């Protein structure tokens, strides 16, 4: 049996680690390479780097971050943020990332998913989405709307429909981030996760709201997620990877416990 995965997300701005709360009040809190190395040593299963650098002329800093991580960290990691073309994706993959994460650019240009999938294989393409609960209405029957530009721009696109379309286009995995839950540490959006798990047959990574081990347990069991993504609770050292994994393992979830 596959183990459930514990994934840490590192937001990187101008080469520094940052973590936002509900996408605002972003502050720099350290070196992403050092954080990645520490989490790897502590038994993390996978990493996601999200480049939130605003200006495109500083994007090369991210390539340096990716390549330093790749020479010290031997678990899979994906990179997202600002990837608009197959060439952009190719650069981070050559720098040593295992997968690419596409979000806003894929909404603007869905062919990016299919092109990247053809070029690198579906296993390489992660469709990441920021989702806000809006209540069921005409263009959004599921009641969950896709929001882009780092949570700023609503699109009128139904999140469940977008997930299914992403899978058809060739995405190999979904990261479903609940904007309502993000940064609250009050638990993942279980209903949203369940809807996604039942709508697609690719792995679903739940994101947003993980504040304590019980939340991870809920989203991996009741929510049906294949992996749980965490950020602040690790970055602010509220829990260690070992504590999270031991809790989940102790409650009967198969986790990678030897590292």
């Amino acid at each position, binding site marked *: 049996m596959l183990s459930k995965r514990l994934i840490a997300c590192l937001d990187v701005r101008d080469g520094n680690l940052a973590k936002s709360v509900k996408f605002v009040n972003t502050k720099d809190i350290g070196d992403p390479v050092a954080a990645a190395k520490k989490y790897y040593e502590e038994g993390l299963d996978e990493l996601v780097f999200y480049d939130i650098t605003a200006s495109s002329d500083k994007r090369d800093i991210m390539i340096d971050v990716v390549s330093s991580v790749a020479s010290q960290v031997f678990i899979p990691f994906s990179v997202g943020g600002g990837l608009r073309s197959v060439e952009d994706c190719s650069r981070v993959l050559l720098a040593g990332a*295992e997968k690419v994460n596409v979000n806003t650019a894929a909404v603007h240009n869905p062919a990016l998913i299919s092109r990247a999938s053809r070029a690198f294989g579906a296993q390489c393409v992660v469709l990441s989405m920021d989702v806000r609960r809006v209540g069921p209405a005409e263009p959004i029957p599921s009641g969950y709307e896709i929001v882009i530009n780092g949570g700023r721009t609503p699109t009128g696109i139904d999140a469940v429909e977008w997930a299914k379309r992403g899978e058809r286009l060739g995405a190999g995995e979904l990261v479903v981030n609940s904007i309502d839950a993000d940064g609250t540490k009050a638990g993942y959006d279980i209903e949203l996760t369940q809807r996604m798990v039942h709508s697609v047959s690719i792995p679903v990574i739940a994101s947003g709201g993980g504040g304590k081990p019980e939340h991870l347990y809920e989203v991996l069991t009741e929510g049906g997620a294949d992996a749980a993504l965490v950020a602040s609770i690790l970055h602010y050292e509220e829990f260690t990877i070992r504590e999270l994994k031991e809790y989940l393992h102790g409650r009967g979830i198969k986790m990678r416990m030897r590292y």
Partner: protein
Amino acid sequence: MIQIVDYGAGNLTSVKRALDYLGIASAVTADSEAIRNAERIIFPGVGHAKTSVDVLRQRGLDSALRDAFSRQTPILGICLGTQIVLSHSDEGDAQCLGLIDGNCVRFDLRSPSLKVPHMGWNSITVVKQHPVLKDVEEGDEFYFVHSYFPRPQDEAHVFAVCEYEITFPAAIGDKNLFATQFHPEKSGKAGLAMLKNFCDWDGTPC
């Protein structure tokens, strides 16, 4: 010097980076002579079997690998590389290298909750000892990403197995060739130990 075979299949730099980290000299090459005369070879890869075998043939790397195999050069296959050392792959109905008799087949799972590709960390069980596997302990997990798996004709060529509804071969080998379906270069310390063991192995069959 270890030669890492470049046939346009996926990210070959991750194997190189892992070897650099271990302090083991290696080079990525598409040169058939470099492969033919290599001290040691790693044959990695991610991608489509038929497409990749076609590239191998165009570059003359198929015969170079066969020659190296018959010269007792230690060879490590990884993921797609492992699938291609068999005689055939169902992915694109590809005639492969045939270093080990067998076929590469797609997962055909009954459980709707199990996804293909089989992607993530899974434990392996060693069924036959091998120098490359000497440090594997009960509960060690490795990183897999694949929709097809190798099925050698002779069970004696299976060294480790993995469970994913069915039991499938996770590591196969014959003579101076050893090959894993999982990615040791992405499997943390357990994977690095395996790469190190391969580099210490003289290619003597067990």
